């Protein structure tokens, strides 16, 4: 039996990126919502709710990026130059918000600066990720194993729209996270914000789904021809189901459910994009088999991934479990 290593790796990388999107998504979302919570005591709790886990969340981004270089070098070598400006913007945003976690507690006078760094950096990173997603969906031309488009190709109305959509979606993850993790007036405010963010996310998903098929015949065929058209029925139904769970969770004060339902929305949206793309890794120029590194590389790293990824999931869950439950506003920083 021949094992299709590129396919397995495509699944692992897809998983890493998904893990990144939903995990860093909520902590970026908390940053995006920062300006809406002007009170210091609220901000302290918001920050504390994500401080113990943000670094682990962001490591999935390193796995998604670094892993791409190892297993799909051609994709890494064409996508990143094509998305040069958004990637740099994302990195700079991540710097500002990443250091804010520590800096914010090291100063009284300049704390407002690092509040802005946290909010602005989170917003910039989310926007840049969304723009990068949009630019990828539009397609990236490749010739002679190199990106062959222009330096501003990434900037289109569509990519700006996806950029904003991701900001909105992350804000939803962030607000439902706060509903789950906080108490008192902070939680109540997050709860009202969650309603708004949920509606906005649903609208954004709708626009995205209607717009995408018309960008590229491949996507149109995928969604409107048999047998894959089945997904066109199933995915929207599941989305509505998650949406219903989210709203009823908010309404009935089931504080964990909205967050879990929001994760569901993200997973469905992500699956939808995956269905559109397959089998391309750089749409619509490079397939996962064109981009794959030789089997010696894929096999060698796969051994490690099969052993280490379950371990990582185990101790990461443990770390989340240690900090389970609502954040105690009295518990300060380290």
């Amino acid at each position: 039996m021949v094992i299709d290593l590129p396919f397995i790796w495509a699944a692992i990388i897809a998983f890493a990126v998904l893990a990144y999107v939903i995990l860093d998504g909520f902590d970026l979302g908390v940053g995006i919502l920062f300006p809406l919570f002007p009170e210091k005591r609220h901000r302290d709790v918001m920050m504390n709710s994500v401080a113990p886990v943000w670094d682990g969340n962001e490591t999935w981004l390193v796995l998604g990026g670094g892993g791409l270089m190892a297993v799909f070098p051609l994709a890494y070598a064409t996508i990143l130059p094509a998305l040069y400006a958004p990637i740099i913007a994302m990195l700079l945003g991540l710097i500002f918000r990443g250091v804010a976690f520590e800096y914010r507690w090291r100063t009284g006078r300049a704390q407002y600066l690092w509040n802005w760094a946290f909010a602005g950096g989170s917003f910039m990173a989310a926007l840049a990720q969304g723009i990068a997603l949009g630019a990828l969906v539009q397609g990236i031309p490749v010739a002679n194993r190199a990106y062959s488009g222009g330096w501003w190709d990434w900037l289109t109305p569509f990519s700006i729209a996806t950029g904003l959509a991701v900001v909105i979606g992350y804000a939803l993850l962030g607000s439902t996270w706060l509903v789950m993790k906080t108490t008192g007036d902070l939680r109540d405010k997050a709860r009202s914000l969650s309603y708004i963010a949920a509606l906005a996310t649903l609208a954004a998903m709708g626009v995205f789904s209607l717009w995408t098929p018309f960008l590229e015949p491949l996507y149109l065929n995928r969604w409107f021809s048999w047998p894959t058209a089945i997904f066109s029925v199933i995915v929207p139904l599941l989305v509505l189901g998650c949406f219903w769970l989210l709203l009823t969770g908010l309404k009935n004060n089931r504080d964990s459910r909205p967050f879990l339902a929001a994760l569901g929305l993200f997973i469905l949206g992500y699956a939808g994009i995956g269905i559109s793309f397959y089998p391309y890794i750089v749409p619509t120029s490079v397939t996962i088999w064109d981009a794959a590194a030789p089997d010696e590389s894929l096999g060698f790293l796969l051994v490690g991934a099969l052993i280490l990824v379950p371990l990582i999931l185990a101790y990461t869950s443990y770390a989340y479990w240690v900090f389970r439950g609502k954040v105690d506003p009295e518990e300060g920083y380290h």
Partner: protein
Amino acid sequence: MFETFDATLLARMQFAFTVSFHIIFPAFSIGLASYLAVLEGLWLWKKQVVYLELFDFWKTIFALAFGMGVVSGIVMSYQFGTNWSVFSDKVGPVIGPLMGYEVLSAFFLEAGFLGIMLFGRNRVGPGLHFFATLMVAVGTLISATWILSANSWMQTPQGFAMNDKGQFIPADWWAVIFNPSFPYRLVHMVLAAYLTTALVVGAVGGLHLLRRTAPLRAGTMFSMAMWMLTIVAPIQIFAGDQHGLNTLEHQPVKVMAMEGHYQSHPDGAPLILFGLPNHAEQRIDYAIEIPKLSSLILKHSLDAPLKGLDTVPRELQPPVPIVFWSFRIMVGLGFAMLGLGLWSLYCRWRRRLYTSEWLHRAAMIMGPAGFVAVLAGWVTTEVGRQPYTVYGHLLTANSVSPIAAAAVGSSLVAFIIVYFLVFGAGTFYILRLMSRLPRDPSGDLGEGPIRTAGITPAPHAATLPAGGRHGH
């Protein structure tokens, strides 16, 4: 604005700039993570509060340094794709998996347990908390192992083949990972990280010994740091010497540049101590040299012949002046560290370790020396590898992304501004934390009698009242 530069040069400048900032943080946090593990272990073992207090003091500093290491590192892992895409496409199949293992086996481990280490003291028991600290320390060492293996493979590549797409493909993973320069580089770099940390801890200890406000804690850390320095500095010099011999075998041109040997010496080469490399004329002006010593060091024989750069075409020579100077800075600082270690040993023997103000001042001056030596060492290594990225196989000029100079130039400017702002502020906060010992009023606990009884740290019996202190 950037039309006059070529994209390759800008991409090199960007890489050098960002990686130089990045390495500063790991160099410190690798050593500090181990130091924290030792402090916590001592606290659990001996139950002397001073260890716990030192742990909390350094933990806050560690959190800052580590955060800066993480955000500057993420930039590195994306930069290969944005600026060095051709390199990534060609070399990805070989060094990509090594970096993949680094993420899977080290980065997740550090990140997963860092939260518990920083915030979890009163949520998990002391044993588990210590375990978390250990995992963070082990994670930093695993991380160094993989990334240095990748870097060493670029210096001394082996165990690969080429495919029809022009990619390097792995033929023998064992040979790739354990390439000839890897063991030397790993030892040299980990020792460098420990020395860097020892010097910083020593400087902070020295500062507070001079201030006389917290003699027990300052004395304890000063003594620990000086032991580390005294023991590791000579080992590092020996390791560096072995490293150089290995480099001579695998990258002789780099050694010629370090030594400043423009000419071949058929019957014994001199050791050039100082001089001004004149690359255009291919000679060292005003050289101060010791005859035949270089042959003795490198070949263990006074008259052994050594080839010079006159055997290497100009376009395959690295920029000699940079390598020549950076090597001397590193070696000079190495001997200065040895000197400080020996001096502290002498003072310890004369029971003046905690009172010799000149020693404390010297330790403070040497505080940043580790960082400078680490940077100088990396410059020697990396600039000495030029004009190749994969030594002997892939030229730097053929590694760069087909990207416009304007794009690289603007991102370079953005990185420079942001790094100086952000890491400048971080360095300021770290220095401020360092100068505030004790940071916490409860830190005075049990120090009164010691201060009156003299400032030699004595075994210290006070233990904490249960629950008297939390991780914040």
